[in-house]
């Protein structure tokens, strides 16, 4: 703190030593005063009454209120009543001294106490670039305190925002999340609340988060000169075709706005799905007899699926063949039919078996569990009928031989 308090020496004999010390302190430069008080030890701490401020010279925007903190400090003296005034202000200026939230005109500083005050100045419009010298004065019964201050009126600088992405273009598939780190900075002189906006292609979802936070934002407060890092996450739709997609991000607040362009480079990806006949994943087959099911391979991805090889893991003793064995290419959105011929084992028992059918290609694969209900041969049924028929024939023979007695 720069000591700026000025006081006249006391004339009363009881305080002449203190007054003398104060006079020395006033006469010397600041570092010397510190050095002196350190050398004179705690017993010789300065005694007196000061009116000080941390910022005696400052600049302020024209037309806006200025608040300057003041302090009235009393060291080693009885309570001092001080009446305030401001001298040297040009016409049209208004001033007010506040203490404890109320306008005050006088204050009493207790021994070893400090009273905090605020000087409020209202400069008139205009007068830009002009320096104004004025002084805050305090009057006690015995002395007059004077605090000279200087103030320069400056033009109001326009609010300014900047948005700067760290990595403006990202590459990924339609299923990956694109996270952009963007620095937002308030270069203006005023605090403001910034609204965040985005414009993305249809189906793209843009969310704003701050830093590593988890809350989604629509706006954020930025103090003058403050910079924050935004995390902008863009989620493309799953069916986005391969290509480059721009996303415009804008921030606006306090009469300023900034925008930046982010680029998503989506690479295509095939996505293959395998489905059974008419979408069903079950079918009937007879033990030992071939049965052909038509499976459908469809590509719901954004790039062609290539070199799809078909394979199956059938139960022991089964034979599974494919027609064709390999599908060369399926365009995005296209389908291809594959005939799957299954021959259950001769030894297969009646009931359900699970056959896993797979299609493996470049970067895409799918598998389907196909449930086959095996029917056993009807040979035994015929044999059973034959046995019953034979015994019925025997009965018929007995009737013709011995009947009607």
């Amino acid at each position: 703190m720069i000591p700026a308090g000025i006081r006249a020496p006391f004339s009363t004999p009881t305080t002449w030593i203190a007054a003398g010390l104060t006079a020395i302190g006033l006469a010397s430069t600041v570092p010397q005063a510190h050095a002196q008080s350190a050398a004179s030890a705690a017993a010789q701490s300065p005694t007196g009454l000061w009116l000080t401020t941390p910022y005696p010279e400052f600049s302020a925007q024209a037309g806006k209120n200025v608040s300057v903190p003041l302090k009235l400090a009393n060291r080693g003296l009885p309570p001092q009543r001080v009446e305030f005034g401001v001298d040297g202000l040009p016409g049209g200026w208004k001033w007010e001294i506040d203490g404890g939230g109320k306008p005050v005109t006088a204050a009493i500083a207790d021994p070893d106490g400090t009273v905090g005050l605020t000087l409020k100045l209202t400069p008139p419009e205009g007068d830009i670039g002009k320096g104004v010298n004025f002084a805050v004065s305090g009057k006690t019964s015995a002395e007059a305190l004077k605090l000279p201050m200087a103030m320069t009126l400056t033009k109001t600088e326009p609010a300014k925002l900047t948005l700067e992405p760290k990595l403006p273009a990202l590459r990924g598939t339609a299923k990956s999340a694109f996270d952009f780190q963007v620095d937002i900075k308030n270069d203006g002189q005023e605090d403001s609340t910034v609204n965040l906006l985005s414009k993305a292609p249809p189906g793209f979802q843009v969310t704003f988060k701050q830093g590593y936070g988890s809350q989604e934002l629509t706006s954020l407060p930025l103090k003058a000169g403050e910079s924050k890092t935004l995390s902008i996450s863009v989620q493309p739709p799953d069916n986005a075709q391969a290509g480059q997609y721009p996303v415009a991000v804008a921030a606006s607040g306090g009469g300023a706005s900034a925008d930046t362009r982010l680029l998503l480079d989506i690479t295509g990806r095939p996505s293959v799905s395998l489905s059974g006949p008419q979408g069903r994943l079950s079918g009937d087959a007879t033990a030992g007899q071939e049965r052909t099911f038509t499976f459908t391979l469809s590509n719901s991805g954004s790039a062609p699926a290539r070199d799809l090889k078909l394979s199956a893991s059938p139960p022991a003793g089964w034979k599974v063949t494919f027609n064709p064995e390999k599908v060369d290419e399926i365009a995005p959105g296209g389908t291809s039919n594959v005939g799957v011929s299954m021959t259950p084992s001769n030894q297969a028992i009646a009931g359900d078996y699970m056959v896993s059918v797979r299609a493996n290609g470049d970067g895409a694969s799918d598998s389907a569990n196909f449930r086959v209900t095996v029917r056993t041969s009807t040979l035994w049924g015929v044999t059973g009928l034959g046995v019953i028929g034979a015994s019925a024939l025997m009965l018929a023979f007995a009737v013709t031989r011995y009947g009607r007695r």
Partner: protein
Amino acid sequence: MTSRREGSPFAGLSTIALKEAADHMNSIRIHLVMVLVLLTAIGSVYAAIGQIKATVGEDQFLFLRLFTTAQQPLPSFVFFLGFLVPLVAIALGFDAINGEYNRRTLSRVLSQPIYRDALLTGKFMGGLLVIAICLLALWLLVTGLGMLLLGLPPSSEEITRGLAFLFASFVYAGVWLAVAMAFSTIVKSPATSALCALTAWLLFTVFWPMLAPLIAGAVAPVDPLDPLTAVHQIDVQQAIARISPNTLYGETTLALLNPATRSLGLLFTDQLSGALMGAPLPFSLSVALIWPQLAGMIAALLVLFTIAYVSFQRQEIRA
């Protein structure tokens, strides 16, 4: 036969069948046996319902479990039926012919314009009618008890399987009725024919499961160095066990009332690879599975009836 008589051999068949059924319905013997069957059936089903309520949370075939669930010390309803249905059939048929003969009413009946064909067939039909009525009543009783105590209606699949079970029980009872009637025509004394029929019943229900492994061991000994002989022995043992109608009936009810049953014989693990265990078989496949057993029982019924028929036709009946 030198002289062929004229007219239908089955004239008077329905009269005899209905009269026979009415006689059975009024006889003390059948009342006693039926009370025994009813009590055991109600007891086992009531115990089964208690067991189902306590343990089974959700089951696709809850009503079929009524027939198969056993709770100590009571065996399941199916077991009781397999054990007692032959007894009912024997009680109905053991004195069908020789009883009439001993009461000297046979010649009186045959002096009417009724052939022996019609008499024997009519008595057999009458017995079958009584058995059918009893089994249907029993089946309805069990299903009704199940609906009452479980609070659920049976599904159509359960009703289909239940009816197939009813039919299998009917055929099984028919086999034992044919056995009893065959003895009643061959043996002159009702007491002896009853004992013969009961002996056959005891042999096949109690002793046959013990005899089958012994016979199989003698017919197909196991060579310790050749594991396939063990498989062969089990096949032989199963074939011998299936001579007993009790075994055939047991396998039939197992496949019909437990839809997850997929095979009744020996299975190798490679037949089970990829198989979904516990998945219920469709009704048609279950029927295909037990059709040989059912066909065997029907054929046995026809053969035994033919034996009774031939024996009766060739008998001297004037007393």
